[in-house]
């Protein structure tokens, strides 16, 4: 049950008399066609100040849906952990369920892995000769139906794709959360699902960096060699280019990860140039900027006030066009050695949607052990997390406002 609070101010009346109000009235929700009854309890705190009416409204859809698209092994899970951390509390798999469940649940957020909507299991794909990237291997009808149901506040029985066995396991019950994150290969592929998203993010990892990351991840595995890692990336590339990559044009925010330009011919993939591409004109989302909104700025924070080790840090900010959309780009090349560098940078960024000075730095400090904590990937993921919190709060506030409006009528 959700509760809303109505405040009535008694204007200038010194007598402090309070008129009687009805204890129940009909309420037409804009989100649900049927009438609902609100039960109100009136409490008066002080005779002539404020009187508070607390109303309990039957739960109506409040779930905000976020889409995160990226290839496998591109840091989706790190991003997810940073995001849930911004909202507070730990994210854990559903208790007592399938140990191989891909779902993560925290107090506010539920993260669903879209691999659970594979229509073909590992063997089925092998027989048909298609990859998991191929739309034919995925059930977009079910994806749409279930995401829609969750957004409307209904629980669903979602299948589980078991990444260890490669089979589709019996479904698990998912309750509608405050924030639903759908992450995977195709959150913005199907138009119907795309329409359900309140915000969308695409993690765009350049081929060079993807290769370097996969070497780091896989080289320790027996049987894997440079050749086999390369062959795997090459084989999946046509499907990736055809079905996954085009989704970035629909994203509200794109995090691009590129090789550094600070060191000539660097291909280690340790020092990164990370771009945060933010769409302009998205409701409830105002892009971050450096110094002056709308200008084009190149900034090297190292100098008298800040010592940086080789190869230093370089920022860029400016307006641009991205798939014929107007965007703002914030870019960071290089990596942090020490914390004071980050607070120095944070103090020069605006529109971060932080609740207090230093929140970005504090969030980054909470997870120093996560990959990317010393470069732009961690910084921009954290910023996007704060932006999502802000978006969520605005959406909830506007819905509460809308309810209040209808309640007055």
């Amino acid at each position: 049950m959700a509760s809303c609070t109505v405040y009535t101010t008694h204007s200038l009346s010194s007598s402090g008399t309070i008129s009687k109000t009805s204890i129940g009235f009909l309420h037409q929700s804009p989100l649900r066609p049927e009438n609902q009854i609100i039960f109100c309890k009136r409490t008066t705190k002080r005779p002539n100040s404020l009187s508070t009416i607390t109303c309990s409204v039957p739960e109506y859809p409040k779930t905000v849906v976020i889409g995160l698209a990226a290839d496998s092994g591109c840091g989706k899970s790190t991003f997810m952990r940073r995001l849930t951390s911004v909202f507070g509390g730990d994210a854990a798999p559903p208790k007592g369920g399938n140990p191989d469940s891909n779902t993560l649940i925290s107090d506010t957020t539920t993260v669903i892995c879209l691999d659970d909507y594979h229509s073909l299991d590992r063997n089925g794909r092998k027989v048909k000769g298609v990859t998991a990237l191929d739309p034919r291997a995925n059930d977009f009808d079910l994806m749409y139906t279930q995401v829609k149901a969750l957004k409307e506040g209904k629980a669903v029985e979602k299948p589980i794709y078991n990444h260890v066995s490669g089979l589709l396991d019996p479904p698990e019950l998912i309750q509608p959360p405050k924030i639903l994150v759908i992450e995977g290969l195709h959150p913005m592929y199907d138009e119907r699902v795309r329409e359900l998203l309140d915000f969308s993010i695409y993690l765009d990892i350049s081929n060079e960096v993807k290769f370097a990351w996969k070497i780091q991840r896989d080289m320790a595995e027996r049987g894997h060699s440079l050749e086999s890692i390369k062959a795997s990336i090459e084989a999946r590339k046509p499907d990736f280019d055809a079905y996954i990559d085009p989704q970035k044009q629909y994203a509200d925010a794109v995090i691009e990860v590129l090789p550094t330009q600070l060191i000539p011919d660097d291909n280690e993939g340790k020092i990164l140039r990370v771009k945060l591409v933010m769409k302009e004109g998205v409701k409830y989302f105002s892009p971050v900027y450096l110094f002056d909104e709308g200008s084009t700025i190149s900034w090297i924070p190292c100098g008298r006030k800040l010592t940086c080790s080789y190869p230093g840090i370089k920022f860029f900010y400016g307006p641009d066009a991205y798939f014929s959309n107007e965007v703002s780009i914030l870019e960071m090349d290089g990596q942090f050695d020490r914390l004071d560098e980050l607070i120095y940078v944070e103090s020069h960024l605006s529109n971060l949607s932080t609740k207090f000075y230093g929140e970005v730095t504090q969030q980054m400090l909470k997870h120093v052990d996560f990959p990317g904590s010393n470069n732009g990937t961690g910084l921009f993921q954290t910023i996007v997390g704060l932006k999502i919190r802000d978006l969520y709060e605005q959406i909830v506030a506007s819905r509460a406002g809308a309810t209040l409006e209808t309640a007055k009528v």
Partner: protein
Amino acid sequence: VALVRATPSPSQNISEKLSESIEHAKEVCSGDAVSGECVAAWDEVEEMSAAASDARLKEKESDPLETYCKDNPETKECRTYED
């Protein structure tokens, strides 16, 4: 010399399956490198690699004391007081 192995950990299990699927992919692709079969085989390798790395991470992250304290929160070494 007889090697006696303890029960393999989940990550070891996946690792073994992974090296099998790599061998399989190499075999399938030796004939035709662009066939659906070959592409699907390499995709399977990618999926197994991701699963293997997840399993390895999980094992590495688990702290022996934390694991013990989850089951025995009342013991001396595990008790924590809020104030």
